[in-house]
């Protein structure tokens, strides 16, 4: 039984670990990265709204916000999205 587990593990270890993380973003050069996380989350929602769930390039934003945002922030925002009270997607009215 233990051998089976070891074999499975050895198999997994054969696959190289993909080392990949969002790079430096010149829009957010500060120590505080909250805006970086937020912007990528909003951009993903906008991207999906515009191009649909299956549009692959949108996944870039998702990977980025998943890497940067604390999980409870994402949960909270997704909750707000479901309830329709997420503040990031509100259209700004033009004033004349």
């Amino acid at each position, binding site marked *: 039984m233990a051998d089976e587990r070891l074999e499975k593990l050895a198999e997994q270890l054969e696959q190289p670990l993909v080392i990949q*993380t969002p790079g430096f973003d010149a829009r957010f050069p500060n120590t505080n990265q909250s805006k970086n996380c937020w912007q990528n989350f909003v951009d993903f929602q906008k991207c999906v709204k515009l191009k649909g769930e299956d549009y692959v390039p949108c996944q870039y934003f998702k990977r980025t916000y998943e890497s940067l945002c604390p*999980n409870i922030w994402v949960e909270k925002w997704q909750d707000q999205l479901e309830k329709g009270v997420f503040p990031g997607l509100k259209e700004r009215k033009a004033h004349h």
Partner: protein
Amino acid sequence: MTTMLHTHLFSDMPESKQLNFQDPASPMMEQIIMLHDYTMFILMTILTFIMWMLMKTTTRMMYWRNMNENTKLEMMWTMLPAIMLTTIAYPSLKLLYATDESMEPELTIKSMGNQWYWSYEYSDYENKKMEFASYMMPTEELKMGDNRLLEVDNRLMIPMNTNMRMLITAADVLHSFTMPSLGMKADAMPGRLNQVNFLTSRPGMFYGQCSELCGTNHSFMPMVMESTNLKNYSYFIHTET
């Protein structure tokens, strides 16, 4: 046993009656220690000189009548300290900005301060998102060679010689993430994501303690970072559930 060897060959944790830094484990900490030693050298030289002057003048063994109304001398003892301060300020500022410099990160880890434990998130891997809490080990559960009030149940594992980005935040009140042997400290604030960049240059287990007064158990929320090679790290990623 390997744990004991690891933790006691290098001084990677606070020790009682400790007067100096812990052993450096990152290029940044090496630089900080070098700046400290350099500043200390200048400081001791000045202190010795001043003490000698004070002794000589107060015991009236030295009196120089030209010291009165001597413009050249006064200019000298104004300019020289200014130059000395500049030689300390320049490398100090240089180092300050170097610690803030963000390199191209290879791995992102999120760390969240909670009352009263730390939790860590690994979210870089598409098919494996990890999140776990890291509580201090109670004294009764310690094994031989463990460090009291420093050991945790789940360590933060990181690959060495890898550019790391750590994002630090808090869930409730202010905390502070500290790793003295890496020369790293950043406040954890609710609603804010603080980024620090670091690199460990050797394997080891590094110990830190919460550095912002956060309540009753502030002293009992240590952080332990295990720096290892990529193979062990990927083993950890694959086996951790």
